[in-house]
């Protein structure tokens, strides 16, 4: 019998929630009709800034799911200064992320030394065919438009480290 007040309180919680939902509306949104904006730093999709990528393969090697595929070749670029030697650069041929495998751990974004990978809050890219979840270089590049601006550095942050 000592449990009866608690039992009644429990019934009150559900009834209260029901009345609140009917009078003030639900906590949920009706997704395809109205959309919640995700937090700006949400991990929706990974975007590729191709110009920064040196095909160093660090991201592909650190990926726990092995869902990043990179192919590249070496090319000679014109020298920086007149009379210098032609430079050797890595040219990116293929950069695919298989979102059917990706588990959104973000290690590739963390590990990239050249700021070529970014998180974007975009999340609506489901596909009827699982093969279409393999996003190629061009598609990953398109996601760059949705990447938010990097946050301001903390005061004094630039001065640290050697120049």
């Amino acid at each position: 019998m000592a449990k009866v007040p608690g039992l009644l309180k429990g019934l009150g919680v559900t009834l209260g929630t029901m009345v609140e939902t009917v009078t003030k509306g639900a906590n949920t949104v009706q997704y395809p009709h109205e959309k919640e904006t995700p937090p700006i730093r949400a991990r929706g999709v990974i975007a590729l800034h191709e110009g920064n990528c040196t095909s160093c393969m660090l991201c592909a090697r650190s990926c726990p799911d092995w869902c990043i595929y990179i192919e590249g070749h070496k090319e000679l670029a014109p020298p920086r200064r007149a009379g210098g030697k032609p430079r050797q650069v890595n040219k990116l041929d293929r950069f695919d992320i298989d979102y059917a495998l990706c588990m959104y751990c973000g290690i590739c974004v963390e590990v990239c030394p050249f700021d070529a990978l970014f998180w974007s809050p975009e999340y609506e890219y489901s596909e009827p065919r699982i093969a279409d979840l393999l996003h190629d270089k061009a598609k990953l590049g398109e996601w760059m438009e949705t990447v938010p601006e990097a946050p301001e550095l903390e005061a004094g942050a630039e001065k640290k480290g050697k120049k």
Partner: protein
Amino acid sequence: MLGLIASIPYWAQSLLRVLGGIVAVLLPAGTIVYVFLFKMMSFMQSRLGPMEAGPFGSLQLFAEVGKWLQKEDLYPERADKFIFKMAPLIVLSSTFLLVAVVPFGPDAWFTNFEAGVFYALAVSSVSVLGILIAGWASANKYSLLGGLRAAGQLIAYELPMVLAVIGVVIQAGTMNLQQIVVAQNDGSIFGWDGLGNPYILTQFIGFIIFMIAVQAELTQAPFDMPIAESELVSGYMTEYSGFRFLIFFIGEFATAGVFALIASILFLGGWGVPFSWFGWTSIDSIDNWMNVVGPLIMFTKMMLLVFVIMWVRFSYPRFREDQLQRFAWKVLIPLSLVNIMATSVLKVAF
């Protein structure tokens, strides 16, 4: 007013009764699933529930039934196929047999048994058989465990249910459901007959015990140990798919409706309004329009009781098996025996 029914030929009466029985089973089941399972449960969890099919998702049920009907009728390789296929029908047939004794108005009844209460309680336990053989025939350990748990639970909670009803039977002095309704609406509380004498007032303990036992008989949470989805997948229903699962599903909620109907007859005055309002004195002097209004009153009371059943279902977590059995044998049964004793003493005293 019996002349009206007597003037219809027998085959037409039978046809009407069959149609009425189907309506009395399926209509409450559909309403309960939409209003309570889809909508009330969602609201209690601060969400809206189905909203796409029809206005406010009111046609969702048809979508669900269509989905189940087009699924393949699967059965496990090692299942006892004949019995496996029969089990859901046994469960549903107990619901149809149960609704046969429910009176909906002075003349709107299917059968008018003298021992209606006895029949109802006996027939309601047929569904245990269906559940047990569903669990056994599935050739699946989860199903078997679920079926055995269901059998243990349903038998344990049948006792307090029967014992709770005995209080009503003693007070009404009859086992005929129709006469129990009349006794409540014809009665008076210390000479004041403005409300009749619904037995929820005098048999309140019996009512509480009955509703708890109904909750357990329906295997609704907090008594859903037999179908505990987190440990037994879905208990005896695990191997069923398509329309056989649909029949189990209809059976569950139709039985909830029928038990609520029986509870409203036993404790809330059934289809009747207090006879003193219109100056009726016996069942023969009731106006004919009660045959139309009676079912509506019954439906309202059923919705009220099912609301309570579902409210409890959505609020409480599941009992452990030992807690569940202890509650039946150590709390409900002694309490109902005390209730019977007190009722019979008071019946003799007054």
